[in-house]
């Protein structure tokens, strides 16, 4: 203990106020536990402040401009003007509303809030260093701790985020003056979402990617739809190249890449956005001091109750491993809080959905056909193209499809892949279907509103059983 520390006690200490941490803290408090939530930065974590929410706000705003600009076939002619600074102001308003909402909810539920950086002293004590001079520190003795420290963007050698022309995703989301030319390193989901945003702002975007395609992890026919749209937006792709260095060149920069043969290419740009993935934040907490094991990548291993190798310490969200998804973090937070409260909670989801907010959107849940086969199922597939959907055509967005993977014997839904308009919303129905052990018939026999995009889900289920009406049966 540092001299001058004030030591207080709490039943549950939650470190990190992102979607894993604040949800855990609220649920713990709802269960009658004295709960303290500490965060060194901002309520809502990466998701609300530097990730999901601001990126989706910008995606929506730029979509409005892009759609208006491209509505001539609907008889609408417009030439929207984008003021990036005002767009940022609006985005900041959205973020502020949400973060202050989180703070209010925490307080209303009786969660004690502390700003500062937590470090474990041992398995029942943490020291909280308050930010700023003269703020001092304090110690908290806890009965249980929930680590929800999240993740940060991975940095690549030679590209320091501290350097002005090098952007992390966080920097890119705060930009008030779009560059003329942007080089994006990485064609994963963050790289693709932001490339689309900047392309729609009118920025000249080039993407370099080490692998040989966009969105690794998604099936070819899924990512192909997104790639085609990106091509239409004028985004240039260069695959099989890794960024190696950048140098200033007049007003702009030149980024050098290397392919596997060592052959170099150079790209002129104003800024370079590095979007090559995220890594867990755990070292600042000094988990080892509490005996919590951390793997070589910085992840904390947990069991199906979010418990670490130390009985009274739990880990949730990005720091607890892939997939790094806010909704997974929240679920884990709830489980951890309930387990601490003595409830029989567990992480036993059949599937966790994931969405990419590219244009068009991608959303997946459960198994792909190949994964189902690998797992020993004999998969049955149903597919419905959005070009056969009345609603999709009437919105002018008819690229993509809904695909459902079911098992052959009883027709239980195992997974789904959707690429197309509102995929991120449509996936919810199939996630529920998987969770409930629903069959294709359950989905197909549920009456869906017409005309909606959701009908495509029903039609895909019908297609799997060769009963599709609005598309040819496979």
């Amino acid at each position, binding site marked *: 203990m540092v001299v001058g520390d004030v030591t207080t006690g709490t039943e549950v200490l939650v470190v990190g106020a992102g979607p894993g941490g604040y949800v855990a803290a609220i649920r713990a408090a709802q269960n009658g536990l004295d709960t303290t939530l500490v965060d060194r930065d901002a309520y809502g974590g990466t998701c609300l402040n530097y990730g999901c929410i601001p990126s989706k706000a910008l995606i929506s705003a730029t979509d409005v401009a892009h759609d208006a600009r491209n509505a001539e076939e609907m008889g609408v002619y417009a030439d929207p003007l984008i003021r990036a600074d005002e767009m940022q102001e609006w985005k900041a308003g959205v973020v502020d509303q949400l973060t202050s909402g989180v703070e209010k909810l925490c307080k209303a539920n009786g969660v004690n809030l502390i700003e500062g950086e937590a470090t474990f002293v041992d398995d029942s004590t943490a020291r909280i260093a308050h930010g700023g001079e003269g703020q001092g520190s304090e110690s908290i003795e806890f009965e249980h701790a929930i680590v929800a420290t999240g993740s940060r963007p991975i940095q690549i050698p030679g590209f320091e985020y501290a350097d002005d022309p090098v952007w992390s995703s966080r920097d890119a989301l705060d930009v008030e003056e779009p560059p003329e030319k942007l080089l994006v390193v990485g064609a994963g989901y963050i790289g693709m979402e932001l490339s689309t945003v900047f392309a729609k702002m009118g920025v000249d975007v080039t993407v370099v990617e080490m692998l040989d395609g966009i969105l690794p992890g998604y099936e070819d026919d899924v990512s192909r739809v997104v790639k085609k749209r990106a091509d239409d937006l004028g985004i240039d792709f260069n695959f099989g190249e890794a960024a190696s260095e950048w140098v200033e060149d007049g007003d702009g920069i030149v980024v050098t890449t290397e392919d596997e043969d060592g052959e170099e290419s150079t790209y002129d740009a104003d800024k370079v956005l590095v979007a090559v993935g995220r890594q867990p934040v755990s070292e600042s907490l000094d988990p080892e001091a509490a005996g919590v094991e951390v793997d070589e990548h910085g992840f904390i291993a947990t069991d199906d109750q979010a418990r670490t190798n130390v009985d009274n310490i739990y880990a949730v969200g990005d720091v607890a491993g892939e997939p790094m998804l806010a909704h997974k973090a929240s679920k884990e937070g709830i489980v951890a809080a309930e387990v601490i409260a*003595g409830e*029989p*909670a*567990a992480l*036993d989801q*059949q599937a966790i959905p994931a969405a990419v907010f590219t244009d068009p959107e991608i959303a997946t849940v459960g198994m792909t056909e190949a994964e189902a086969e690998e*797992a*020993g*199922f004999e998969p049955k597939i149903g597919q419905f193209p959005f070009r056969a959907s009345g609603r999709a055509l009437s919105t002018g967005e008819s690229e993509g499809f809904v695909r459902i993977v079911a098992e052959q*014997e*009883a*027709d*239980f839904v195992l997974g789904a892949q959707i690429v197309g308009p509102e995929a991120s919303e449509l996936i919810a129905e199939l996630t529920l279907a998987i*969770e*409930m*052990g629903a*069959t294709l018939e359950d989905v197909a026999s549920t009456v869906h509103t017409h005309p909606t995009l959701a009908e495509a889900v029903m039609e895909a289920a019908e297609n799997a059983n060769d009963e599709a009406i609005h598309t040819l049966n496979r």
Partner: protein
Amino acid sequence: MAVKEFKLPDVGEGIAEGELVSWLVSVGDTVSEGEIVAEVETDKALVEVPSRYDGTVKELFAEEGQMVPVGDVIISFDVGDAEGGDAAAEAPDTEGEPGDSVDEAKTETEEAAAAETPEGRVFAPPAARRLARELGVDITDVDGSGPGGRISEADVQAHHDAAEEHDGTADETPVTPGEGEAAESTGASADATAGAAPSGTASRETTLAVPATRALAKDLGVDIDAVPTEETREGEAFVTEERLRAFAESGGETAEPATSAADEGAREETVPYRGVRRTIGDQMAASKYTAPHVTHHDTAEIDQLVETREGLKETAEEKGTRLTYMAFVLKAVVAGLKEYPILNSELDEEEEVIRLKNYYNIGIAVATDAGLMVPVVKNVDEKGLLELADEISDLASRARDRSIKPSEMQGGTFTITNFGAFGGEYATPIINYPETAIIGLGAIEQRPVVDDGEVVAAHTLPLSLAIDHRVIDGAEAAQFTNTVKEYLAEPTKLLL
């Protein structure tokens, strides 16, 4: 040589467990496929368990008298060389120590299961999975009753209840601090479930009992909250007078711990309350406490019936049929039901409709060693006397030796119980819920009747008709009985 396991199969009807009544084989016996190796009594009937393999019995996993949950392995077989050879070829490293073979069998079983639902995938909604966690049930062990084997909360609960009874122990769910009392009372309740005789004491806060039972408890100096019981009313423990007396006799008022079986010695004997007996009990309680019973008594004069039967008996015997009165009663009852369909009905409380049945499936209560069973004679109106007599005889004998199938005891629309076979005249039969009426037959005897102002001896059959007074009125009961009486008095009318 490979080992194959046999699990107690799902015999349908939502049955979750069965009592292993007897083993017909021992370890080391050679069995062939289809050979019956065990008898298992479920809630409904005695089920024969056939061997699925040619081989020798390797291990029996249950004792006679033990309750076995559906899906539990009850027997394993060493099976023939061919299969054994295959198994060895597939898994060469499992050859060797005999002990390994069980593990291998387990692996095979697991693999077989895995083939059905790969990766241990379970198709169950979150609520069912949560309940499984609450009850400490491994959901991968639960057999789902839904389409394709989807697991419901009820399946999880049934699995848990079966396992609990199988263990003969109280709920093993970890008890959180402060739940000690609840756990204690759960234990008492589990004890009571396992045996009819009261053992131990309960310590409830609330106990329901009728005033007379409360008065008796006072007289006997018994704390009614300490009397173990598994009966409940509206979720609260309910103590009957019988329970109370048994508890008092066992010295329960001193709240002493249960006496050991040896101490109890000849004073009392414990008879398991389960299987058919428990099903009867549950059914009776459900019926009695659901349907308000009213019993209508009357007597049929049946001299003509006695004569007619006497006259036909020999002819029937020549045809190999033992013509009983029951066949006539069935016909007379159906004639009555046709005139008064309200007695051939069922009250659907959920839908708020009375379902009148235009078919006549008559249950006949049969006393068996295991207790009351009710085989059902289907479509009585379409069958002749001889056919009915044969069918009754066949069903009754199979009910007695418990080889009757559960499906043969279902689908009844009205029931006849013949307590007269044991003597006596009138009784209050309990309706075979959800049917709405039952008729009880007393003994056919010559009794004095008044004929034209003179007391004469006549053959009479006492009738006791119990009705669900929610559905049937007294007048209808009386009219129906009169019709049955008419047909029994003049059986030739049945020919019309």
